[in-house]
């Protein structure tokens, strides 16, 4: 059983790690370390970073939806795996050689890292910010501690796992009921109980129970990433309810205007958009923006928390047109700033490919109506495949850089 759970985790955790690294890359941390990088002291841990693409437009929705939903699915597998090896924790003497002592130390990092990563991720998406400091720091550096121990553990145990998997036929086990379940023969690792109690559940039963747990968590969470009528099925997920506001702005909100301290007066008649970067700053009213060529793009909002919306029809001015207007035809990047006074994501830097994509907009309308306050009225950025928090809301200042 340990080997079955182990092999599922081996694949699952590698996928979690890769999608996690991709999510970090999606923030373009090296583009503007002071603004985009939540872990600016990453050093060599950012060795793999690359410019995040804008194609396909659903890329981040997919990678982050997989990251979060798969995390839930693996919870029962992780618990079962730890349950199956718990006798090793109470082994006596604790170590018979320096090698064993060191390996057990690495297991502390492995188990601590695993539970730490799952706990911080699961707590963060429920908007329960009780952990010390920035979630991004904890989850990113915690992941590297965990993966270091994970790699060593896989290197040591993969042969044991393969041998154990080969020793039993899955077909036979799936046909064996509790009455015919025999205990494991004693193993060299002393994991098997020398005096087992009579079995109360078959191996297929134990696998089925864990599988049912994964399936249940999947069913009750995946709807918040797929959307549509499935959203209502995400009974326990934070974004499983319909917003219920009705109308064109009735789709999920990450942080409302009230939460971020943005007042309707700030977004009203007196609102101005300032474009900087060229020889002289340009200041535009909403009416002037609406007089510029308008473009419509069908794009989702995809949050780092794993939930997302279906495509919404955003209408506004192309970012590349705004760059032209600012006087910079060949922008290297743009710093977008919000009316929000505080918060880690009151500003974001966008890369050249994100500015030049024809579907990248400063949106003024969504689904044919002006943006609501909660969706960033009067103007917000929307860029294909961009993480939600980088689609800055309540935009007031854009600084284009060559």
């Amino acid at each position, binding site marked *: 059983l340990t080997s079955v759970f182990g092999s599922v985790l081996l694949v699952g955790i590698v996928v979690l790690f890769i999608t996690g690294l991709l999510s970090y890359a999606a923030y373009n941390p090296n583009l503007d370390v002071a603004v985009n990088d939540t872990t600016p002291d990453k*050093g060599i*841990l950012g060795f793999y970073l690359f410019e995040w693409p804008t194609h396909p437009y659903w890329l981040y929705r997919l990678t982050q939806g997989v990251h979060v939903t798969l995390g839930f699915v693996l919870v029962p597998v992780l618990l079962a795996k*730890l*349950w199956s090896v*718990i006798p090793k*924790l109470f082994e006596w003497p604790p170590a018979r*050689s*320096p*090698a064993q002592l*060191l*390996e057990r*130390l*690495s297991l502390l*990092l492995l*188990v*601590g890292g*695993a*539970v730490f990563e799952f*706990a*911080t991720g699961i707590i963060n998406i*429920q*908007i*329960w*910010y009780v952990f*010390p400091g*920035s979630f991004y*720091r*904890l989850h990113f*550096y*915690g*992941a590297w*501690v965990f993966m*270091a*121990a994970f*790699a*060593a553990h896989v290197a*040591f145990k993969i042969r044991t796992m393969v041998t*154990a998997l080969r*020793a*039993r036929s899955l077909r*036979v086990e799936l046909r064996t009921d509790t009455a*015919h379940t*025999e205990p494991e*023969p004693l*193993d060299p690792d002393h994991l098997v109980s020398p005096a087992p109690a009579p079995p*109360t*559940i078959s191996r297929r039963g134990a696998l089925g*129970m864990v599988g049912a*747990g994964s399936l*249940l*968590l999947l069913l*009750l969470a995946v709807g918040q990433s797929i959307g549509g009528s499935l959203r209502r099925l995400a*009974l*326990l997920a934070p974004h499983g*309810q319909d*917003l219920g506001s009705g109308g064109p702005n009735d789709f999920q*909100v*990450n942080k*409302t205007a009230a*939460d971020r301290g943005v007042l309707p007066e700030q977004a009203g008649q007196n609102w101005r958009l300032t474009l900087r970067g060229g020889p002289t700053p340009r200041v535009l009213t909403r009416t002037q923006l609406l007089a510029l060529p308008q473009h419509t793009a069908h794009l989702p909002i995809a949050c780092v928390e794993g939930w997302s919306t279906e495509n919404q029809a955003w209408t506004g001015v192309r970012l590349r047109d705004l760059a032209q207007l600012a006087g910079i035809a060949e922008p290297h990047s743009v710093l977008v700033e919000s009316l929000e006074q505080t918060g880690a994501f009151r500003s974001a830097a966008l890369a050249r490919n994100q500015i030049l994509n024809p579907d990248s907009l400063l949106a003024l309308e969504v689904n044919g109506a002006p943006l609501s306050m909660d969706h960033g009225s009067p103007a917000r950025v929307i860029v294909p495949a961009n993480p939600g928090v980088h689609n800055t809301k309540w935009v007031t200042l854009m600084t284009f850089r060559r």
Partner: protein
Amino acid sequence: MNRIVGWYGANPLHLLALLGCFALAAYAAVRLVSFQPITVAVWFLGAVIGHDLLLLPLYSVADRAIPAILRHQPTPMPTVAWINYVRVPAFLSGLLFIVWFPLILRLPAEYPLATALSPKPFLSHWLAVTAALWILSAFAFAFALRLRRARPEPPRRRHLHQPG
């Protein structure tokens, strides 16, 4: 060389892999704890202790206690082993609680303001799913009982001997 290997207790590659592991882990850990080092360490160690010494013993004790408490039931008719009809719904309901307890218990105060969604439905959703699981399990038990009583004791199959 052989003496060192004998003293260490494993292949030198084992040591090399562990040193690599600790080097990378230390590099990341220094950054992990660079703000609020004590609280972060408490969280990290708390994760191990919370799981290994709290959660796991608790559910193990519960798993053992249930049959012990309910053991001496008279069984005048043929019956089936009932423990898994209790264990499975309890496990599934508990699993949902462990994952979603912050929302179920309305701990994230910022949730309604941030998302413009109601914090209320999670408790009732969890209770409803839990109830559904127990009802399903009861039906499954009743069904198994009927099957069992409809036909005589099946002959026990030959025991399968498998190498580990």
